[in-house]
């Protein structure tokens, strides 16, 4: 294990027509940490995520993951990178025509064609159970699941290939407080057990307080600060102060005790 960051973004610039979303943005994610990314609506949190996982080509800037620069990577290297990370999209993005078990098997089948069917089924089942669902949910279709269960099923799919790096886009959005807290614990547990590094976008202050090791604040088209919440609170930036010291921020801090 070394100290090089798992994700390193330098000088990123993204724009849609005239509208510049990111300008000269730098961000690092260290091995084994949970980095929370916060920012107001429209500050380009999801665009940042999409740039890192290669769904959106940046105008400028260097992005390297596991020490490999992704825009220089060949198609084969890119595929190999994809095998080493998992992504949980905001609404789950489960394939609606496949059952939960089949959804989890999709990446397995794609990358490892010669696994036998029984083992594949067992793998899918224990990943589903690991993500907090029951084995009898495996043959269900996404439309038969509640919002929270769908998130868990999507998490099972993103963990299918034993990734070292996990991207979560607002994992607790739309969950009730109990479900959200349970999901936070699940993420923390899985991170410990599987040795994950997690890049997490969230609006949920409780999530930030309970599971994030570090928080990066996105504003004015770049990362204006990153560090533990205590470090951020010491800064004198109006948005950060309002975010963490607003009524909800204080409540979350008090809840953490």
């Amino acid at each position, binding site marked *: 294990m070394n100290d090089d960051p798992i994700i390193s973004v330098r000088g990123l610039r993204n724009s849609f027509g005239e509208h510049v979303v990111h300008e000269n943005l730098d961000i690092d994610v260290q091995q084994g940490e949970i980095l929370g990314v916060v920012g107001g609506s429209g500050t380009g949190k999801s665009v940042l995520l999409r740039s890192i996982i290669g769904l959106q080509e940046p105008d400028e800037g260097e992005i390297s993951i596991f020490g490999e620069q992704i825009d220089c990577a060949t198609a084969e290297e890119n595929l190999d990178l994809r095998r080493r990370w998992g992504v949980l999209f905001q609404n789950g993005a489960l394939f*609606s025509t496949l059952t939960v078990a089949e959804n989890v098997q999709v990446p397995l089948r794609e990358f490892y064609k010669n696994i036998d069917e029984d083992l594949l*089924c067992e793998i899918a*089942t*224990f990943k*589903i159970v690991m993500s907090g669902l029951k*084995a009898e949910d495996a*043959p269900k279709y996404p439309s038969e699941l509640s919002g929270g269960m769908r998130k868990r099923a999507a998490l099972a799919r993103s963990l299918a290939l034993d990734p070292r790096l996990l991207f979560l886009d607002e994992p607790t959005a739309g969950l009730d407080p109990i479900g959200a807290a349970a999901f936070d614990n699940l993420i923390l547990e899985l991170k410990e057990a599987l*040795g994950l590094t997690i890049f997490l976008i969230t609006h949920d202050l409780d999530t930030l307080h309970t599971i994030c090791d570090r928080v990066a604040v996105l504003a004015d088209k770049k990362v204006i600060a990153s560090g533990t919440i205590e470090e951020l609170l010491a800064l004198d930036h109006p948005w950060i102060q309002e975010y963490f010291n607003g009524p909800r921020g204080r409540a979350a801090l008090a809840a953490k005790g």
Partner: protein
Amino acid sequence: MSLDADFTELDEGGERVVRFSGRLTIARLGDVPQRLDTLEFHPAQADVSAVDRVDTVGAWILHKLTRDYGAEIVGASDRAQRLIRQVTIADDPAKSRHDDEGLFRRTLERVGESTLEALSSLKGLLAFFGGLLIATGRVIRHPSRLRINSVVQRFETVGISALGIIGLMSFLIGIVIAQQGAVQLRQFGAEVFTINLVGRITTRELGVLMTAIMVAGRSGSAFAAQIGSMKLAEEIDAMRTIGVPPMEALILPRVLATTLLMPLLGFYSTVLMIAGGGLLCWIGLGIPPETFILRLREVVPMTDLWVGLIKAPVFGMIIGLAGCYQGMQVHGNNEEVGLRTTAAVVQAIFLVIVLDAFFAVFFSSIGWG
């Protein structure tokens, strides 16, 4: 040392031991799981001290050795032990796959299911028609509830934008009928009867029928897809909550548009088919347009036109109904939208042709043959 997972079976002091080597990860497993399944003895120990790396799949395989044979795992690293604990917790004996049933039973089941489905679909369509009539009654009593903008907009998409394609299709079909008819009738020296053929078959049947098929493919499918996607996005539920009945706001304008526009489109199509036929008669058979029209007026009775025009609104209504009904049946996932769109077109064309047969019998029996 190779990175591929492998194991050897040993006998240590009377105890059977499997010793693993390489990487116990999904990428390097190879045939290890199959070979473990066919072990002849029950290992008492699984030695993983020589294993380089373990992932959850490797941990699962080790866990199965413990679960199925009671084997003790020795030499596991901290990380491997954590993973094995994690998958042990995640082992849920409940079945995650349905058992396969026999072919005969499956076939029988499928036949039964589709029969029931066809019947319930027809019943649903009838109930839907009833609902639409009630909504129509309400709108007739309170004419201000008719969403006139919506109706006019449907008129445009169903009617005006279809003029080009329906016109072209009809014109070409007219040419084909005249050409094929002329070839056959020439054998009897009766080429002049091509005019009877073109005139009567287009006004009575083909004008309206081909238009119905085109409208079903163009508008019926669009209705199903639009309403289906709205249903998935809960827009229909939102309308109901606000107090806008979907029957009045979505379905009535659409069905009204197809019902009112089918006679117009059917007539337009008939005229263009006759024009196509006339063109071929002129060029191919040397019958000048004046003669063609004169002869047409002699051989095509007015009742033929009525036959076509009476059928048209009925077909239009069926197309609109089937499209909207199938759209409203969408639930669950996006694939359903595609299935229901197909079903809308198939159901509409099928019902149109069945009804056309009834109309044919009916009109001949009242002497409009």
